[in-house]
């Protein structure tokens, strides 16, 4: 075993996959400048050269489209969006091109692109640098979407994403970059579509997406003695391991989903829809979604804090359901 930071996990996965497969290249803004703005690409240009580590102009449409065309031509691009929010200026190449080519061509062409996008709120960067936009892509047929919350999965899911033969949106969280945890020696991958039961419990199932995994574990700790909380991290949102969630709800009869994205039309609502459709009789209380307020994220610290899920707000939601 060894200790590994989340950001090092991303960096190691990039190093290992580039070394393993000469068709893998990295493209995005600043990725060749001292490891990029957040240092996730540290050491890549020195090791693999400027041919395979391509810093770009601020042209998200161009590099997202380039990656799509390169993948159609047999390469395996890893595209970096400096902030998740910036995908909005590349929605045509992402949604109308990258996600559609395999289907539109009747399966003749594959588009093995990994799109890395860094998200996170609570950093006082306001409305255009704080969004969790995964629902847009989950709503778009053609994408797989993963959101690692640990160093183990940051590395394991990135390696799986790069090896997958279709577009995978890999959403990393900048608040987790410097979290450290113990990981195994040797190589591993985290398969797409397999959830993790992070903590076993009897009374309520909390499905926690991305950064919210921390909130869920803290809430479970705070409720010890009052309620026994089972925490599930789906890790992969599409494909989703619904079986693990249903199996947990069959034991607890209660469900709360928590994520940083707004609750309205978020992926929590979709998980609730699927649980209700396939496990209505398992539920002893109405399922709840805890998400951010439906507002452009404000800057002022007390305002931002009030708009985001917290351990306290999650604990309150759990209380509400347990005491039903």
């Amino acid at each position: 075993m060894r200790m590994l930071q989340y950001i090092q996990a991303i960096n190691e996965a990039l190093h290992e996959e580039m070394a393993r497969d000469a068709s893998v290249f990295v493209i995005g803004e600043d990725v060749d400048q001292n490891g990029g703005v957040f240092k996730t690409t540290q050491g890549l240009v020195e090791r693999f050269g400027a041919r395979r580590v391509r810093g770009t102009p601020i042209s998200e449409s161009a590099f997202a489209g380039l990656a799509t065309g390169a993948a159609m031509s047999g390469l395996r691009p890893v595209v970096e969006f400096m902030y998740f929010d910036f995908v909005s200026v590349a929605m045509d190449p992402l949604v109308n091109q990258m996600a559609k080519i395999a289907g539109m061509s009747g399966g003749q062409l594959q588009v093995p692109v990994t799109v890395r996008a860094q998200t996170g709120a609570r950093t006082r960067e306001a409305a255009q640098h704080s969004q969790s936009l995964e629902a847009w892509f989950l709503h778009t047929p053609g994408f797989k979407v993963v959101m690692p919350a640990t160093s183990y999965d940051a590395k394991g899911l990135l390696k799986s994403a790069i090896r997958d033969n279709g577009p995978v949106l890999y959403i990393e969280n900048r608040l987790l970059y410097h979290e450290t945890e113990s990981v195994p020696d040797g190589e591993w991958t985290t398969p797409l579509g397999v959830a993790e039961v992070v903590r076993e419990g009897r009374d309520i199932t909390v499905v926690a997406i991305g950064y919210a995994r921390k909130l869920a574990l803290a809430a479970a700790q705070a409720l010890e003695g009052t309620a026994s909380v089972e925490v599930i991290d789906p890790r992969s949102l599409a494909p989703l391991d619904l079986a693990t969630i249903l199996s947990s709800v069959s034991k607890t009869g209660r469900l709360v989903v928590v994520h940083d994205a707004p609750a309205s039309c978020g992926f929590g609502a979709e998980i609730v829809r699927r649980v209700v459709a396939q496990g209505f009789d398992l539920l002893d209380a109405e399922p709840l979604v805890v998400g951010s307020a439906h507002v452009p994220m404000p800057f002022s610290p007390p305002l931002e804090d009030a708009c985001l899920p917290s351990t306290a707000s999650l604990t309150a939601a759990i209380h509400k359901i347990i005491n039903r």
Partner: protein
Amino acid sequence: MPAKFWNGQKAIWETTSIDGLKTMEPDLVIQMYRSMLTIRLFEEKAKQLYQSGEIAGAIHLSIGQEAVAVGVCSALRLDDAVFSTHRGHGHLIAKGGHLPAMMAELMGRQTGCSHGCGGSMHMFEPQVGFMGGNGIVGGGLTLALGAAFAAQYRGLDGIAVVFFGDGAAQQGTFHEALNLAALWKLPYLAVCENNQYAATTPFAAAVPTADIAPRAAGYGIPGIVVDGNDCLAVYRAAAAAVERARAGDGPTLLECKTYRVEPHCGIIADRRPKEELERWGQPDRDPLEHLRREGGLSDSVISAVRHDVEAELETAVAFARGSPYPDPAAFLQEHANT
């Protein structure tokens, strides 16, 4: 219309060995004519089948623009990549596409070149380097960067060509793609088919200048205007740009002035001035007539080619009509994913 350069350079082909018919195989001219006639007759047949209800959806015809597709694609190799538009049947035919699979695609059959998943706007035939039509105006400009990048990345001398209309030149992707292609000296050829209309909006209502090609100067690359109804002129300009791209000297912006004889698509009324339509309908503006004259093709050659092409089209239509529709269950099995 004389071809001209916009950044003070000599026309590239003046410095190459490609000099029109003197070095051009007579067979190539016949091949070009045959390809243009195939596009013309394919489009006329598609229009007829659309009107009779055998083809559904929307089809965008390129009648009158055949010289651009054929002139450019005649300068390419099979392994060069072409990215097309919503008006792309001609590009695929010119690149070597198979008529039965194209006709079957228009009719939504399993044997179609996109297995019935794409239709008129999304034909794919990667085996001949045809990397897809595109329903989004300006969408192909950035995709073609990727094929050009892949060739450069692998150290191969393949190139990528993107066709786009004058309308697409007003999209942001035009700027982003040309800037990046020039910056990285990608083997990239941007072919603007200026057919003078963006759907129903005339060129002058969308563009403050007379031409698109001068914008190339802003990226430090050659920008060329050529008569897009003169197949040999298009071929010469494209061949020079292709040679430049293969040599590693970077991209070229080639603007081909042409005219969309048909309306935008089958479902939008055509309100263009009658005099304009008549002017462009004259034989001297017809790209096929132009090539027949320039290439000195005899009546017997023309009639033999026409005979062949008509037979091929008949076979294609029969093949499409006899092909099964795709199986919905198999489609969902392959493509649906949650």
